[in-house]
């Protein structure tokens, strides 16, 4: 009999395509961030993204998937029964998806595990030491990402059991990476010359191209999280696009109205804020709710990035906290307000549809994610900094990370 009769070709094709789309988001992120740093650091950012694709790509199939989605251990983590993808074959695993091979689900989730640590690259950009980075992200992937993924999505996970709603990773991806970013930028300190010398994006066209790839890929991230080519996927697709568009428009209008001119960096940042915010909600809320969520994302993240950072003076170089943590928290709580069982029967109703309890469940999940990610990030940073060092020497920072960490030059002009 085998897997043939259980597997839905349309669902499987959609999830595989979605996996490819989500993978593309990490190179997209490399361009998005790369364009925003100074010339001498562009390769370092891209290297950090690509090495994560490789490192987590290996770690995931070896044991990451087992820890995140494997047989439950104390509602906290999965066990190691699925190391090397043992027991993860072509038959569907009904705990996760009844119509696609287990390996399809696994490889889809792999791409989320890859991009999540890539997000906080922006917090320590232009001053991180590659060796410290390498060890840190490995520890973070294993001990922060995998457990939180298990809590929210794993069979037996305590938040999943509680009824948490996180459709595509508001908490698992954005809140965890975003708050870790805040801790990291505070621990590593400001860039040399921050506040005195201008540190402007060296290639905004890269950033725009990166945003396009991210927005495109996000349809895989959000819509394919339905794990089926069905109405929920359509809903997620529509809400994703609507929220992103509304958020970008809001940010552009705010700049236009209050700063005189709308900027390209602002507009694309707005769209990313919208995408991050709708991520936990996309399969549970309707399009009009998504529009409201998008506008809120644009406005709130704008304030976080421009006012909050200026007020407290932390050097979150590429605004990971302001966009991903703030957006992720906003979106995760928005689910507690706007979720509708009518949209997704596997979900729940939110506060605006007669159910107050969901909001408190969301609050619990957000709180737990924030606390856990924050704590472990602090611990790992301090330990690694003691033995390897997390920040480069001053002269290496001045020379630029491309040369000091990788002995490469992005735009050498040689070989013409």
């Amino acid at each position, binding site marked *: 009999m085998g897997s043939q009769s259980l597997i839905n070709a349309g669902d499987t094709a959609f999830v595989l395509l979605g996996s490819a789309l989500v993978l593309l988001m990490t190179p997209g992120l490399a361009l998005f961030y790369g364009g925003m740093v100074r010339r001498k650091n562009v390769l370092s950012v891209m290297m950090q993204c690509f090495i994560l694709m490789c490192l987590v790509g290996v770690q995931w199939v070896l044991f990451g998937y087992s820890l995140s989605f494997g047989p439950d251990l104390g509602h906290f983590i999965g066990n190691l029964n699925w190391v090397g993808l043992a027991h993860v074959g072509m038959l569907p695993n009904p705990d996760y998806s009844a119509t696609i091979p287990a390996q399809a689900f696994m490889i889809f989730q792999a791409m989320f595990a890859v991009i999540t640590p890539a997000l906080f690259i922006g917090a320590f950009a232009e001053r991180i030491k590659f060796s410290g980075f390498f060890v840190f992200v490995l520890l973070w992937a294993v001990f922060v990402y995998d457990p939180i993924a298990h809590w929210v999505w794993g069979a037996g996970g305590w938040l999943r059991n509680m009824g948490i709603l996180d459709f595509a990773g508001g908490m698992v991806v954005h809140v965890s990476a975003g708050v870790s970013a805040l801790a990291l930028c505070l621990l590593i300190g400001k860039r040399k010359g921050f506040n005195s010398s*201008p540190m*402007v*994006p060296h290639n905004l066209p890269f950033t725009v191209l990166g945003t396009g790839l991210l927005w495109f890929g996000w349809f895989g991230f959000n819509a394919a999280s339905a794990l089926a080519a069905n109405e929920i996927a359509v809903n997620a697709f529509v809400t994703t696009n609507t929220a992103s568009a509304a958020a970008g428009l809001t940010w552009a209008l705010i*700049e236009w109205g209050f*700063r005189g*001119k709308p*900027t390209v*960096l*602002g507009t694309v*940042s707005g769209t990313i804020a919208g995408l991050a915010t709708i991520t936990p909600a996309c399969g549970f809320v309707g399009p009009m709710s998504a529009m409201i969520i998008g506008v809120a994302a644009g406005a709130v993240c*704008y304030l976080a*990035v*421009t*006012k909050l*950072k*200026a007020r407290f003076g932390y050097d979150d170089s590429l*605004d990971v906290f302001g966009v991903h943590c703030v957006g992720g928290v906003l979106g995760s709580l928005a689910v507690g307000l706007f979720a509708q069982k009518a949209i997704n029967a596997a979900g729940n109703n939110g506060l605006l549809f007669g159910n107050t309890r969901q909001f408190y469940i969301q609050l619990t999940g957000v709180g737990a994610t924030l606390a856990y990610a924050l704590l472990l990030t602090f611990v790992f940073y301090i330990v690694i900094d003691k033995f390897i060092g997390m920040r480069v020497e001053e002269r290496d920072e001045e020379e630029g990370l491309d040369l000091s960490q990788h002995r490469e030059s992005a735009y050498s002009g040689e070989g013409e």
Partner: protein
Amino acid sequence: MKKIEAIIKPYKLDDVKAALTEVGIAGMTVTEVKGFGRQKGHTEIYRGAEYTVDFLPKVKMELVIADNKLEAVLHAISKSAQSGKIGDGKIFVSDIIEAVRIRTGETGEDAI
């Protein structure tokens, strides 16, 4: 021999080149530079952070000419590079001790 260094507005480059060709100048070197004199810069905003940019893009032309061409060259550059607005640039003249054409080994005014 004299060396002429002219800092001009980038969009004037073609006009100046044409004017110099007309007075018989066969070669020059051009670099993209940044600078300011009395012309003010501009402000840029990146995610709410404002930066004042004082330096403006300019073009620097360098040419070495025979002494007898000096007046014609100064006049040609001044006239073609002028817009009448602040930021038109400046011309500096200095003496050249020696010049060599690398391909043939010619020196002095034969090299220019």
